[in-house]
């Protein structure tokens, strides 16, 4: 059966879009790789709210909002297919793997709402067991109630780093230290954006987090550089420079984070146009105010269209849902615009304070200085090898990929792509915009050959 709208991803944007599109009478199918709606931000929110009220409370009021949103989504009448991994999108057709079966769904319109990934924080030793991303540690806490050990060190920058620190402490855990890679000059540069950030809630949230950490005796190192993790078969120590001194912390878990960027995989697969966002130091797919991509019939909403956080993603998703209803002829432009007005107002308020965060928490060192640093985790390709490839004429990511197999491992360039572009741009002295990105081909994730061979076209 053909659906008016097929949505990929059930985070705040996907759910918001489904709710609005259903309200306007569209048939909606939501394909979600996870086992329950919520995306990464409201992961497992139904189960945690049901079985462990205390844990849900500790995860904060934003997480509680997720429970309400999931309820609204469940009641919307959208068809929800969990455990469905989308591996190819062609004109009007979405291919996915459900269990061991490949199937496809025909779609009038397709909305990609696959969210953000953490910016790869490529540092020497980051491939060692005992080095994890902050998002990963947060998932362990949210989904499985796992609290890391007291020797844990959080390193990097960005609001999520402090949020996670607060959540670990609230859950009864302890932390050894927070090692912040924000250069001190950034605080001055960011101050220019302070007036816009006042009254948005970002600052008071941030201050409350910081004071909480200090009270619990977490050591905070500011303005550090030259991070490196060492150990034989696992992380044993984190080294860095702080106020001109070399510091070593003994630790078995280093948690890295330097902000989030749109997950480009699906929007690159579908050959949507992307632009470089210098303020957020990342590529973003090009969309209009309603989430329409450069490719007709394709829409993008949420953090996958540009980082704005969960509340902005939900509003953006709702706008896309209204636009999908207009494009399908279910509502007219006047109705769409009237329903969009409060969403736009909310969105503008949310975006107002972000300049401050963007300047303060821009990545400190997107390009690893040390040639021995592994960039491509899958194929174990170092920064030095990539620089060499550029020197012998590898002018773009796809040439470097064919020289080195960099980005050709199982993660298909998800972890190294942004850094490969950054290294080539630096070596050639041009903007990342001029360098571009890996070409992403189907399947979007590795799938068994037998599943493709047994695919049932049109069975969705």
């Amino acid at each position: 059966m053909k659906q008016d709208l097929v949505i990929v991803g059930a985070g705040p944007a996907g759910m918001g879009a489904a709710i609005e599109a259903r309200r306007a009478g569209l048939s909606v199918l939501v394909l979600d790789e996870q086992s329950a709606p919520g995306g990464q931000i409201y992961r497992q929110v139904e189960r945690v709210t049901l079985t462990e009220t205390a844990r849900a409370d500790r995860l904060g009021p934003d997480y509680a909002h997720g429970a309400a949103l999931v309820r609204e989504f469940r009641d919307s009448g959208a068809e929800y297919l969990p455990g469905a991994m989308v591996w190819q999108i062609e004109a009007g057709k979405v291919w996915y793997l459900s269990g061991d079966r490949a199937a496809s769904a025909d779609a009038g319109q397709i909305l990609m709402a696959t969210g953000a990934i953490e910016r790869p924080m490529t540092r020497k030793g980051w491939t060692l067991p005992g080095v994890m991303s902050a998002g990963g540690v947060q998932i362990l806490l949210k989904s499985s109630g796992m609290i890391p050990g007291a020797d844990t060190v959080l390193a990097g920058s960005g609001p999520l780093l402090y949020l996670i620190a607060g959540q670990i402490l609230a859950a009864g855990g302890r932390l050894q230290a927070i090692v912040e890679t924000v250069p001190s000059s950034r605080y001055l540069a960011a101050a220019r954006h302070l007036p816009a950030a006042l009254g948005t809630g970002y600052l008071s949230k941030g201050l409350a987090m910081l004071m909480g950490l200090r009270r619990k005796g977490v050591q905070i190192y500011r303005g550090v550089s030259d991070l490196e993790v060492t150990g034989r078969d696992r992380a044993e120590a984190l080294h860095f420079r702080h106020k001109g001194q070399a510091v070593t912390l003994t630790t078995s878990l280093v948690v890295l984070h330097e902000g989030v960027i749109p997950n480009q995989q699906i929007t690159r697969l579908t050959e949507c146009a992307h632009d470089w966002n210098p303020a957020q130091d990342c590529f973003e797919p090009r969309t209009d105010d309603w989430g329409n991509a450069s490719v007709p019939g394709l829409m993008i909403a949420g953090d996958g269209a540009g980082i704005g956080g969960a509340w902005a993603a939900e509003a953006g998703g709702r706008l896309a849902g209204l636009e999908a209803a207009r494009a399908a002829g279910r509502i007219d432009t006047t109705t769409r615009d009237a329903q969009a007005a409060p969403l736009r107002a909310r969105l503008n308020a949310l975006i107002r304070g972000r300049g401050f965060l963007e300047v303060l928490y821009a990545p400190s060192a997107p390009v690893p200085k040390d040639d021995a640093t592994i960039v491509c985790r899958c194929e174990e390709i170092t920064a030095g090898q990539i620089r060499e490839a550029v020197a012998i004429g590898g002018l773009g990511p796809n040439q470097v990929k064919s020289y080195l197999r960099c980005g050709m491992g199982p993660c298909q360039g998800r972890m190294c792509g942004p850094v490969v572009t950054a290294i080539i741009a630096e070596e050639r002295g041009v903007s990342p915009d001029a360098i571009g990105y890996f070409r992403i081909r189907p399947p979007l994730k590795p799938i068994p050959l037998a599943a493709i061979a047994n695919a049932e076209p049109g069975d969705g």
Partner: protein
Amino acid sequence: MSFTRTPTAARSVQFSFDGMPVQAREGDSVAAALLAAGIDRFRTTPKQGKPRLPYCMMGICFDCLLEIDGEANRQGCMVEVRDGMQVRRQDQSREVRL
């Protein structure tokens, strides 16, 4: 690296890792269950044979690749653990089975 667990009402699940019994909680991903059990490597890399554990836990890094119920290269962080599941470590490269 070690984790302690918050109390829960979730049911306990039993599966095996390289033939060894492991206790998990219903709702855990295979990767979370193995980290909670203190497993020190999920796999070794195909090229250099280096040990790896999950990095991202959200389906991006592919460092949690495991053999699950006979199927190689499954993302341990994206698969929910079930009673009786048989999970194996992946050392170095996989053989192509047709």
